[in-house]
């Protein structure tokens, strides 16, 4: 085809790196993204400070049962906000793509990148990197700040705080950031599959927060057999050092959770290419 138009602009080819750069612009240029990310970090740090502050201040007034529960789960005070952060980061993952569908900008995105998949991978890369880079300092701050608060309370036998060097603690603290990162990707996959924001958030919440209590309705041996393999259980074993009930080993659970996220993204990729936009 002979090119007849007098064109002067130097235009490059579409590459994965360029699409990732574009996705970074999209991610940080939305006020809603910045807010959701700020809320996530606030949940991680804020809950750790409040919880350890209350425990340290009220320790003599706590019931023996509460004291015992605290001492058997010494890391809980530092990572108490991670559960809610899982929800907010998952929702943010949903929004990263469902927001494009609800506003229609997905059409612009796919006109620029008609092969489509680089858009999904670009979003996944940029969002995962951003989430990890922001949540890792947050969980570290949550850990060291809450441990400092707990260390200020002296108790007759032993101590409330736990050292970073204790077995499993670095894995659990850093693991919390890893789990949040993968939770974001899980949300992204669900968002790309469902495409509608509300529907995708309901799906995510159902899988992570509604499925585990529903399991309690089953006979106990069934529940115990299934529970370790739920996405939420698989995700949570990495950031605890005192697992309760039937669970997988920390890294095995995390690997399974990564598998769930990868599955959601794989289904999303197939649908993304096949469906009309």
């Amino acid at each position, binding site marked *: 085809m002979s090119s007849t138009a007098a064109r002067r602009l130097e235009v*490059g080819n579409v590459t994965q790196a360029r699409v990732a750069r*574009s996705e970074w*612009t999209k991610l940080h240029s939305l006020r*809603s993204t910045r807010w959701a990310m700020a809320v996530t970090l606030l949940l991680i740090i804020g809950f750790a400070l409040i919880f350890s502050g209350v425990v340290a201040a009220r320790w003599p007034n706590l019931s023996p049962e509460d004291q015992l529960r605290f001492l058997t789960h010494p890391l809980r005070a530092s990572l108490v906000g991670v559960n809610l952060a899982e929800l907010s980061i998952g929702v943010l993952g949903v929004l990263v793509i469902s927001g494009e569908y609800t*506003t229609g900008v997905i059409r612009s995105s*796919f*006109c620029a990148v008609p092969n489509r998949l680089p858009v999904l991978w670009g979003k996944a890369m940029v969002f995962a990197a951003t989430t990890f880079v922001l949540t890792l300092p947050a969980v570290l701050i949550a850990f060291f700040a809450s441990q400092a608060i707990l260390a200020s309370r002296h108790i007759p036998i032993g101590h409330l705080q736990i050292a970073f060097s204790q077995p499993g603690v670095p894995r659990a603290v850093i693991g919390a950031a890893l789990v949040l990162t993968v939770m974001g990707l899980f949300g992204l996959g669900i968002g790309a599959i469902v495409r509608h924001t509300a529907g995708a958030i309901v799906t995510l919440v159902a899988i992570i927060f509604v499925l585990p209590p529903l399991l309690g309705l089953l006979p106990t041996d069934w529940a115990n057999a299934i529970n370790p393999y739920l996405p939420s259980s698989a995700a949570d074993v990495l950031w605890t050092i005192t697992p309760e009930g039937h669970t997988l080993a920390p890294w095995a659970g995390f690997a399974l959770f990564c598998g769930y996220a990868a599955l959601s993204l794989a289904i999303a990729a197939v649908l993304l290419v096949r469906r009309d936009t």
Partner: protein
Amino acid sequence: MIEAVGLTKRYGEKVAVHDLSFTVRPGVVTGFLGPNGSGKSTTMRLIVGLDAPQSGHVTVGGRRYRDHAAPLHEVGTLLEARSVHTGRSAYNHLLALAQTHGIGRRRVEEMIDMVGLGEVARKRAGQFSLGMGQRLGIAAALLGDPETVMLDEPVNGLDPEGIQWVRNLLRRLAAEGRTVFVSSHLMSEMALTAEHLIVIGRGELIADMATAEFVRRASKRAVLVRSPQAQALADLVAGPDVTVTAVAAGLIEIVGLSSEQVGEQAAANQIVLHELTPQTATLEEAFMELTHDAVEFQAAAPALAASGQVTPP
């Protein structure tokens, strides 16, 4: 150059486009004309691969759109449907598109100035008026300096000044040798802008010809005659290519003869005329006439029995 061959697209039971073939050539503004719901937007979505046809294929510059290494350099598209994130500024919207092709910030700023959005470029696009949204869409379409410019209803929501600006822009782009493909449901708008027309109704091709030719063929040439001897005149001029319709007592409409021919025949036969008026149908009437026929024809075809407008999801 856009080449569509046998494009067919159904959404469920509804046929949006049926066996549509056409070629859009560079260097002229080609109008894509059809009533609302006739399949114009669907066709444009098929061209850039947002939707996949059930059969047929379409190429731009000799290749499928998605096979181009730099799609925005090949086709610049303005879709009718909203294609901007309401929470993002015009500048960041264009920047994100530009970055996929390694296009720099200077080009983004140039485009913003060109469409006259300099004042509001940092505001969220959700606050834009319809006209500002159209200008942003046009900036996005021209961002990659494309060989083909494809705009779906670009003058929607623009003020008269904006409409004039779009017309001049389209002519300039065509004069630069680009392929310019622009849709409208308004015949009058197309007559002013487009040199060539592709007309569709109910998803099928009705006409593919020069605008002047379309207007000439479409315009019904009727002559309105008032005469006390109307019946005698009707009998006189009647023939295989001439239709005579009684409008009222002593008033007939003759199709197929010019006013000169009617007047001369009346004079030659000593028929008294009280009025002899050439009726030129407006473009809009001519267009509606044509597409109306297409609609009637389609309604009879079983495959297209589903009535109503087809709206892509």
